[in-house]
């Protein structure tokens, strides 16, 4: 991985939140929360529409993160990559129909030796996602690990 890309900011990526995608995500993460899965309940709630589970951030950030994964200049070894840590800080709740724009920044790239003495590379990425009204919906801090090998 090219460690000189610390500070790189990627072009923004926009995602439009569809209600059926929220339902699909809720099913895949075993949620039966009525705000996210029951259209009648959601319509009567203070939101008036179906809203996304908090970690739906993984979905509207996905294409933004994919740009990093596929960045030839960065050159990640994808089969060796695992997710190390993740933080999401939430602002406004994401509602169906929202348009979310995400800006992605490489915060740092570090080499860290694990317990077996193998050098892993840690990629620290920050995402900032705002809705169509310019309100922050989520800050994400992503720790992506490119596993070293002892060969």
């Amino acid at each position, binding site marked *: 991985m090219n460690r000189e890309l610390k500070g790189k900011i990627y072009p923004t990526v926009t995602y439009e939140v569809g209600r059926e995608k929220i339902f699909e995500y809720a099913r895949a993460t075993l949620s039966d929360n009525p705000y996210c899965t029951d259209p009648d309940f959601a319509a009567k709630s203070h939101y008036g529409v179906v809203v996304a589970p908090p970690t739906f951030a993984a979905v509207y950030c996905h294409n933004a993160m994919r740009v990093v994964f596929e960045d030839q200049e960065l050159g990640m070894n994808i089969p060796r990559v695992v997710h190390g840590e993740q933080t999401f*800080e*939430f602002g406004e709740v994401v509602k169906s129909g929202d348009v979310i724009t995400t800006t992605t920044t490489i915060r740092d790239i570090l080499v860290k030796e694990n317990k077996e003495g193998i050098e892993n590379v840690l990629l620290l990425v920050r995402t900032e996602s705002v809705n169509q009204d310019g309100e922050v919906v989520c800050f994400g801090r992503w720790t992506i690990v490119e596993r070293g090998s002892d060969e």
Partner: protein
Amino acid sequence: MSEPIKIDKYLSYHYGGASGDLNLIHIDYEFARTAGLNGIILQGLCTMGITANSLLGDGDPATFKSIRVRFASPVHPEDELTVDGDGGEDQERFVVRNQSGEEVISKGRAVYR
């Protein structure tokens, strides 16, 4: 502690479709083996989502202010997970364990509004 949460054999495919994360380590057994893994693994963000949804229950999603997790070890199809939180009201520390008692999420922390 949550009721045991069974990870369906095909959940990584459903989550892959729902999220767009179709990295081959989540869907192709041979590829995952070649990559040095013990078979396909569930997307970490799927485990995180399941955990957050378990902590949230039927509550208003706005109650979640932040969540942090460390992916301590891989989750495999047909694992059975339990979310063990300290039950804090404003913030809660939690871990997620598999059927062997191994932590798959460690150092979990959720902050509520």
